[in-house]
């Protein structure tokens, strides 16, 4: 069946199709290429008029100097702390809830899951106003707590969904067999099901981490001092009124993009294949 598909669609032979495809992809990738090229330029080259395409003296100084700057390190750590904490909480909580939803199916569990998923339909901005008010009341504004709690709120529902689906792939007969042998539910969960669900847990962790790392609006709203700002928020403040060090800015943008790009490169093959059917051989 797959072979027939290949046979039939044939190769992308016609020149026109190739030209169109390459042209489209070149245009799409241009901004990213430009970002990379800019990050490799010296201060003088970046503001050269007219703009030159390739750096004549490519340099890594932008990246290096970023790290030397005290502030950048601080922002990076903030992002890292918030992302790691959120991820840990989400993975633990969602795997527990996902297991329950997977093993104890009933009408109320379906309703509950639906309600949880429906919360994803609410616009974050609306919830953010309430969150801000409540945080202010409790005095948690401008703290790691605020960021972790808020990010968890918007990531958890989907994590629970992912968790449930993943636990569904592990047959409940395994649980029952273990319990017949005398295991309690807790032991079944920790010793048997969890290790088997590791790929799912990893996926959940990656999703939670990258979503939190890239997050902008919540961090922007709930932090008010530089010392608490996360990387995305802090970087945008680097656009000065009069003079901006674009090369430094592009280098910082690349650093922010690193987790997402890294995961993407690692998973690219299986991700695209998984989404579009791996039946067709390359």
């Amino acid at each position: 069946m797959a072979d027939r598909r290949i046979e039939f669609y044939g190769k992308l032979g016609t020149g026109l199709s190739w030209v169109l495809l390459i042209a489209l992809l070149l245009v799409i990738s241009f901004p990213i290429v430009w970002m990379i090229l800019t990050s490799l330029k010296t201060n003088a080259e970046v503001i050269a008029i007219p703009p030159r395409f390739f750096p004549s003296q490519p340099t890594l100084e932008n990246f290096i100097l970023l790290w030397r700057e005290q502030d950048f390190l601080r922002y990076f750590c903030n992002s890292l702390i918030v992302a790691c904490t959120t991820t840990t909480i989400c993975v633990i909580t969602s795997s527990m809830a996902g297991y329950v939803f997977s093993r104890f199916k009933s009408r109320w569990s379906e309703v509950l899951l639906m309600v949880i998923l429906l919360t994803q339909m609410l616009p974050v901005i609306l919830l953010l106003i309430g969150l801000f008010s409540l945080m202010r009341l409790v005095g948690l504004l401008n703290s790691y707590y605020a960021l972790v709690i808020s990010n968890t709120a918007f990531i958890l529902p989907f994590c629970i969904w992912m968790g449930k689906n993943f636990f569904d792939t592990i047959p409940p007969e395994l649980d029952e067999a273990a319990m017949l042998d005398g295991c309690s539910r807790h032991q079944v969960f920790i010793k048997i099901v969890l290790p088997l669900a590791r790929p799912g847990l990893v996926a959940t962790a990656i999703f939670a981490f990258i979503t939190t790392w890239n997050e902008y609006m919540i961090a922007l709203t709930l932090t008010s001092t530089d010392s608490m700002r996360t990387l995305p928020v802090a970087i945008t403040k680097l656009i000065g009124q009069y003079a901006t060090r674009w090369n430094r800015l592009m280098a910082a943008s690349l650093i922010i993009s690193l987790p997402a790009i890294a995961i993407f490169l690692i998973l690219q093959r299986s991700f695209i294949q998984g989404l579009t059917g791996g039946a067709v051989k390359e």
Partner: protein
Amino acid sequence: MADFGESATFKEPSKRFYRAAKIRGLLMTGMKLRVSEKKKKDLFFIVLFLLPSILVLGGTIFLPLATSISLSFQRNILIDPNRNAFLGIGNYVKALISQAFWSSTGKSLLFVGASVFVAFLIGLSLALLLHKRMKFRGFLRGVGLLPWVIPPVATALMWVWMYQPHYGILNELLVRLGIIAEYGDWLGNPRTALLSVVIVNIWGVTPFFMIMLLAGLQPIPVQLYEASRVDGASKLQEFWYITLPLLRPTILVATLLQIIWQMRNFSLIWIMTEGGPLDATQTLVVHVYRQAFRLYRFGYGSALGVMLSMISLAIAVLYLRVFARK
């Protein structure tokens, strides 16, 4: 209860009957106890494992939601708390008669409509092109997916740099290609700002359509095309009568999702223009944010947020009505 049948007289059960009944009763209670033991243990487990999630979601979603909605019925200004009051639907009325509300809603619709439509078209083209077998297909698909992978912050900054009036590469390219005569201030000019932001959004959204439509193209059986070839159909007819209709569910889901998501797209616009210049790019979300977190009008901001939700819901329902024919 025992059925005494037609017998009208009540026969006193024997002592043996009572004893047997007592034993049976005890056995049943015993069994019930054992069953409910297990059920109780399970219930304890369920509660224990669900409690963290319920608490977290309750406190971080439902509580703030209730807070926001209740705020929407008040005048609640952070920096001027003396004027706080209960307003009923006052905020909503204020919004409906405010020019800013309608103008920002209009900009939202423009922003969403243009972004989703164009991104869909380009994504469809890419999907059709990449559906065929070719060398480096995985790599090329990866390239097409890249804009989706880059975080919105980086996207916004990357494009702000490209749009830069004096040193930006876009101006240089356009001039060299002879499209424009001199450098323009794309993000600073109220007439070009919205278009510029829409272009960036299209760039970021296209990969989503590409990948969704690629996935939707996969299950289409080859036999359909073969049969149509036999009947003498042209490539265009193949596309219009076979591919498109079969892609319909995928297209519907993908566009609906994007419409809902783009209605709330905040980061991109805020980082690039903060809604300016002169409110040229102030979509509804940006308007809500500005009211709530720049002017600190929590009451009015919440009301606007609720209206944003209602509008999104209305659009979604309308969209499904029109396009999801059974």
